[in-house]
């Protein structure tokens, strides 16, 4: 079984709540945005469209990041398809970050927190999950035990427009097919488990 996420762009308003709630859940350091919202503009005035595209790790079925990882830290879990990084093993070579076509991986390299050298109590409390010198990435909130507790990932639970749906890939595919959803850059052969509805 693999988990998948579907993001309905008709609903999404690009509000960035998925970005900061992910930060609140995981305490990612400056510059690390497991979850982010990309923006683009298409067309010419006045026939123009602006699109907000929320992104996270696509938990690819054929992940480009796994093959290049020399240490075996990155792997795709067989039981739920989540692509995880074992931070106790990762050597910090960033080959995975380079290979990932979706920019989903962030090296954690600085001791500094958001307010400089002295970490806030919040950052201190989250520090253990964010060791320095290794890669951080979205893990469908696996590390904070959300799935174990039977709760959907934070950015799904909290999406203020309910644009995000999460569940076993087979179930999600029904929605994807019905709404003519798509993956990002499918031609790269990564077969993402994050789908977008137009």
């Amino acid at each position: 079984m693999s988990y998948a996420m579907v993001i309905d762009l008709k609903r999404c308003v690009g509000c960035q709540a998925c970005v900061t709630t992910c930060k609140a859940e995981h305490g990612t350091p400056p510059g690390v945005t497991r979850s982010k919202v990309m923006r683009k503009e298409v067309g010419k005035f006045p026939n123009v469209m602006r699109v907000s595209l929320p992104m996270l790790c696509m938990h690819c079925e054929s992940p480009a990041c796994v093959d290049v990882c020399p240490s075996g830290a990155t792997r795709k879990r067989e039981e739920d398809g989540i692509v995880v990084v074992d931070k106790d093993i990762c050597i910090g070579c960033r080959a995975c970050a380079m290979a990932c076509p979706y920019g989903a991986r962030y090296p954690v390299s600085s001791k500094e927190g958001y307010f400089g050298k002295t970490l806030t109590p919040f950052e201190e409390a989250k520090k253990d999950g964010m060791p320095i010198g290794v890669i951080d990435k979205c893990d469908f909130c696996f590390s904070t035990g959300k799935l174990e507790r039977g709760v959907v990932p934070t950015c799904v639970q909290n999406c203020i427009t309910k644009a995000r749906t999460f569940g076993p890939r087979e179930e999600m595919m029904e929605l994807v097919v019905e709404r003519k959803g798509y993956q990002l850059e499918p031609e790269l052969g990564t077969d993402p488990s994050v789908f977008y509805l137009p």
Partner: protein
Amino acid sequence: MTAPAVKNDVWIPTVCNMCFCCCAIRVHVVDGVVVNIEGNPDSPVGEGRVCAKGATGMMMLYDPNRKTKPMKRTNPKKGIGIDPGWVEISWEEAYSLAAEKLGEAYAKNPRSVMFQFFITNTITGMFGLQLFQTVLGGQFHYPDICGAGIHNLSNFFNGTGNSCPDYDYNKLLIQFGMNAGTATRHGFNMTVRRFADARAKGSRLIVADPRMGASAEKADIWLPVRPGSDGALAQSFAYVLVHELGIYDRAFLKKYTNGTYLVDPDTKRFARDAESQKPFVWDLSDSTAKVFDDPSIKDVALEGAYEVNGKTCATGFQLYIEGLKKYTPEFGEKETTIPAKKIRAVAKEFGETANIGGTIVIDGKEFPYRPVAADCFSGVCRHKNGWHDMWAIQNLNTLVGAQNVPGGLVGFAPACNGFPETGRPKFYPATWEKEHMLEATTMVLPFPDSLYEHAYTPLKYDFNDMSMFHIMPFNHNDPHFNVPCQLDPEPLKQQRCDVLLAYASNPLKHWGNNDEMAELLLTYKYIIMCDHYLNDSSYFADLYIPEAHFLERFDLPPNGAMNHHTIGLLSTPWAYPIRQPVVPARDDAPGGLDIFLELAERLGVKDMFNEVFNAIYGLTGENALDPDTRYQCTDIIDRIYKDWFGPKYDLEWFKKNGVLTWKRSVDEVYLYPYTDARLPLYWDHQMEAGKNVAAAVEEADIPWDISEYQPLPDWVPCKDHYVTDPEYDLHPLYYTNAWSVDTWTNEIPWLNELNELDPYAYNIEINSATAKAKGLKTGDRVKLEAQNGYKVYGNLVVVEGIHPEVLAVAGGHWGTKSDYLPIAKGKGCPINHLIECKGVKRLSHLSANFDQCVKVKVTKA
């Protein structure tokens, strides 16, 4: 690894204050440290979700730059960048200094004290207002650039000071100058889900906005209007509906508006029955003029003109549609730059979707069903002519009967039957019986306040009240004339204030030109500031009093009857939550209300302040505050809740349960057909008000423009539309994004990071064609200069989603220069620095709208 010790691990329900929407949250606290913030699913306010700002509460809580000890200045020299020489002082010293300065000023002249607050923590600010204005007799100020006019228009049309489309049933929404439910507006985090549901169900969105903002991004049709031309656009829509398509809800207009009342052609006032003073209408069935509520009326005339007492009196509606005649789509095209063809198409879709004559059954009750709405907010308010523009927009709803019915525009919370166990609080909009008009329960606390009575009350000019409320019968919200008067009291023969108490507000930044605002702050002899940060204005403050952070304090009930924060609608249960501390306050700083209670005691008005709570919350019996007792904020919350909901629901209950909710019923949401009180179409009462204003200013010999007091809306260009120098060819404007609040959230590092990653926020957007013509490109550092010589600088980003005559920035009041806000410092482009604050030319004399429409030339810096 050693086994982890047993942790003190709790989730505490409270209420967010990262913006004024007051969403219910639950805060995860482990061993005394806030480790996460989530929405509280028990409350409809947020429904278990937080917005981007809400999730950052702990980043503000733990911000080392937040100042949590009282301080006083030691360097008497004031000015941006000049170190005030802050020294920490004890709370005792802070209180006694504040009480001394305020006490002296109040003793000299109560009106010499100015209390300023605004949108962040409005609840406490409201009671500061009660203490420093109502009880002690001072003046008050806030920069309601967003709400000027619109709240009172809502009062006139929707029975309360805020309205929104009935998202649950709406099928077509036209938004003018707002990003409600996509990035902003009151109740954002509630609206956004309903609005998304509506889109998912196929409801259509049309957005009039010079910039493609969060709403236009989601729109089916984007109308990039020229700034300040919304009135012309709305009137053109009405023209098409009336004169080209003949689509308007005749039954609604006859029954629920005063459009049938006959107008005397000479006075432009209603033709009235001499004895009863009631306006006449025309009964077509027997061709006679009758007073509007004559029970014998069979077929009232909506259109046409009729002979009454020898004069040909047209109906108000007839005059309205005649007034529309000049607003052809071609006229609209010329003024708004929206092609006439598009104007016709949008009007047609609006009219056809309105489903005139259709009905719907909800909860077993039949209602008219008009699933369309035209809504507007701050983008339109920011123009001097905002009142007329928004009025024209509101009329679109009235025209198709989409007011206060399912699918149309409805008030946030016009009516309440009370908590089922106690029947409290209970309110319903009254009817102004003289003309049978719908009144409002107002917007903050359900207090009856008849705007029609204001119109009919003779006025007297007050030489010691800079708000000008005394000559603005329809404006008791927006004291914006304070700004020009404090800068120069002469022209309006006013007197300046000497002492300013600024609570949660940054006056230097949030209005116009920063140098003029600095000059304004220098006119005060003493400034007390109550904030979390030393913002730009703090460079002019003498005394800084910190308030505990919202995660460290109690506040009065945040949403509740304060329907200003929270939308209504049938799908939203009533919700009364508690804001409570989740961690102890850093340096034991008290909450704002406790500060005010202490000051009330020291200023010797504890008793009167206590009575204010009794009056406003209607506290009765043993829950009423004893005038002579010194209370804490918690005592008052406890009493309010027990009094309203019964003894079971005391402070402890709320601390544990977080929120009390109960279902809303249809009659609390849709006023029609529960009332037959009418909406104004022909504003005879505005003529009356204008007459009273004219008399008062004449008597006082004050220069005052009364041209806005008209019976029907009219569109006039903004001041800077008249700038003809071709060099000054671009309108800079600002917008709000979903993850920033006012002048201070760029200090929250996560939010600053979002703005840094965002292509637009910290840059100046320019249309690609315009940029090309000027030889400008993305990344260019440019100077924007207005004709008044004011300049700002910023970096360009060339885009398509913006009108070619427009430049856009987020915020428009960013770019802080405060060294005490190191993360925010210098970020963003403060275009409001281009707008002059002196003089009254930019202020509506009816509704105090502040015209921020300027024209600039842009050159490489």
